[in-house]
């Protein structure tokens, strides 16, 4: 093959270009530390990365849901603990006069205390979550579900579900009718109308009706059990949320590992390649410089 000076020059330009292109690709890898900087770097892997990113965003969202729901449930749990405490107090109070007493003052004190405890239970049942929802109100969460005067329930029995992971929901709230009135099903915690029991007890104590007082004591015990049942249900839900959150976090870790396998640059490899490429480039430059200097003109007289 006949070789001309221009051929050598053109080839040198072409190959120096290729060398420099490789070098700049490696430089991009080492500066961004990412294998894929644009979809065309590896279209399939880019698609996988985007899918992973979407799944990560989704499970971030689910974890946010879970943490908000947990807060809501903790508020509910605090309310239930309070209610249970007041019922226990009421029970010991009633126990003290279970066989009746003729002491008018003592009966008055007990009935006053019972009335006050009932009022505190109503206040507890009207607990609001951090963002102002009445936790025991069902979906009518913007009005107080109970009032002290007539024991009626202003909420509804709708249970609010939230999504904790894809296509899997968890009931977030306990409704006041189930907890305090003992009505409703799925779940049912008992059949005791706790506020009504208080009213009956107050009346029985005032009237010194021993039979009614004892009936009231039994009903209070049943009521305490009802609250305990609700607490157990709530705890079970919170445990589920907890494990869901762990599962989501585990999934995230797996996904992040997958993404990082695709995306993270093997620095050692790039470093070695970079220095190889640098050597190749400088060799090419030096060869080009030396060869293109040579000409017959240097030797002609």
């Amino acid at each position: 093959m006949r070789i001309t000076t221009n051929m050598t020059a053109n080839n040198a330009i072409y190959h120096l270009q290729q060398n420099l292109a490789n070098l700049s690709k490696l430089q991009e890898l080492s500066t961004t530390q990412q294998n894929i900087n644009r979809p065309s770097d590896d279209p399939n892997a880019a698609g996988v990365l985007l899918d992973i990113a979407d799944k990560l965003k989704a499970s971030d969202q689910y974890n946010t849901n879970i943490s908000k729901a947990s807060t809501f449930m903790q508020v509910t749990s605090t309310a239930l603990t309070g209610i249970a405490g007041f019922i226990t107090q009421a029970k010991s109070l009633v126990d003290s006069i279970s066989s009746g007493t003729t002491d008018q003052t003592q009966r008055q004190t007990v009935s006053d205390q019972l009335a006050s405890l009932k009022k505190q239970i109503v206040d507890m049942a009207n607990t609001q979550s951090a963002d102002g929802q009445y936790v025991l109100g069902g979906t009518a969460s913007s009005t107080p579900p109970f009032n002290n005067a007539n024991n009626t329930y202003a909420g509804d029995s709708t249970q609010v579900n939230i999504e904790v992971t894809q296509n899997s929901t968890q009931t977030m709230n306990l409704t006041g009718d189930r907890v305090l009135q003992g009505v409703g099903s799925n779940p049912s915690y008992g059949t005791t109308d706790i506020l009504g029991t208080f009213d009956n007890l107050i009346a029985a104590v005032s009237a010194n009706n021993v039979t009614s007082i004892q009936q009231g004591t039994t009903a209070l015990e049943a009521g305490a059990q009802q609250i305990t049942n609700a607490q157990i249900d709530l705890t079970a839900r919170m445990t589920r949320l907890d494990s869901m959150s762990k599962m989501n976090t585990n999934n995230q870790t797996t996904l992040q590992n997958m993404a990082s396998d695709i995306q993270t640059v093997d620095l050692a490899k790039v470093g070695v390649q970079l220095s190889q490429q640098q050597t190749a480039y400088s060799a090419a430059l030096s060869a080009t410089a030396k060869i293109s200097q040579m000409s017959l003109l240097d030797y002609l007289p």
Partner: protein
Amino acid sequence: MSLNSIMQIGKSGLSAYRVATEITGENIANVNTPGYSRQRAILETAPQSAINGFSLGTGVSVTGVQRFYDGLLQQQMVTAQTTLGYDSTSSNVLQQIEPTFNEVTTNGLGDAISKFFGSWQDLSLNPTGTAERQAVLTTAQNVVDNFHSISKTLSDTVAAQNSSLTPLTDSINATLNSIAQLNGQIKTTQMTSGNANELKDQRDQLIQDLSKQVGITYTENSDGTTDVNYTDASGTYALVSGSKAGAFSLDKITNPNSYAVQLTAAGSAGPATTVAPTQGALGATLALRDTIIPGYQKQVDLLATTIATKVNAQQTSGADLTGATGIALFDPATSSAATIAINPAVTSTNQIAAAASGSPAMSGDNSNALAMAGLLNDTSTMGGSTFNGYYNTLVSKVGLDVQSSQNTVSRDEAFSNQLSTLRESNSGVSLDEELTNLVTYQRSYQASSKIITTATDMMDTVLGLIS
């Protein structure tokens, strides 16, 4: 044989080597001229004469100037240039679009869609919350903005392709005219038995330039001219025929946003025929304008309309904070990514329908918000993918198109580099060779002049005998 004929032989040498040196000079001067083919003088012995009873040559003569030229290689280069022209044009434009879809390093439409449905998840935890409701509206606006931005980039690129047709066809027409003119000059020069090598080189170079812009075929005629033809599905047209040139024109009136390319064949009186070039830069520009970019646009439009339709349907099947049936969140007139917008009738955060249909005012029911958030994973409308999945596939597709066009371009470049190396090997000027020739011819010229001096000396000797 006389002393005179010795002088004549010397003279023939002088003039032959003068011509040869001249050609060497021309070669050296054109060492960097694109498309130049090296030339050489063809030396032959001058006719013999038999004056003294035996025949002897009468010196040397230059019978022609030969151009080192490979017709087949030229054909291959023309084909390679056409492919390179198409691929590099489409690669350039696709690389400009790619950043719009670069969801890998920046947050774009995909992220906006995720956030929009995420905001419904947040709303499901506090269905009466004003902040959560506001977030739904804000993220919806973000989705709209992202759709608009992508759509604008795509339609701007389409418009840019359309307007680039004007300079492109102008440049093609100018090249066609130059080829036709050169054809005329070559024909005239050759009729007067002149040497049209340089003109031919120029013409071949122009044909190569032309082939980069539009797919052509060409034939060389015996009179030295070259006919250039253009072929597409509608037929074959002469672009250059002898010294007559055809011309491409654009119909800008029928559809000002999408010019039709028309062609008036060489020597034809018109009217121009509408053609559909598929090769070279012209073909690539048309393919980008009519097929490739509108293809992306169609997918983005489908995504926009489907999201709007599904979200609106879910909105209207729920109840808003006042207990009324929800109204469309996105403009019901949405028909593309460019026209998607928040429904102008949505003026208050109360109009977000989080509760189930029939719920009272201020209801804390979240079932509609949950159903809305669940649309993120809905695979019923986008051919088996979710909205994000569909968009991710589009991103991959754009990436794949860019990648394969880049690969094609580098392959094309390697191929045409190889071809020009081959051409250079055959037709290129080698300075070493020319310098060697220069020395050779110079020495030969000196020797020829020595013959003349020797003959003069001999003549002097003869004349000295007389005196």
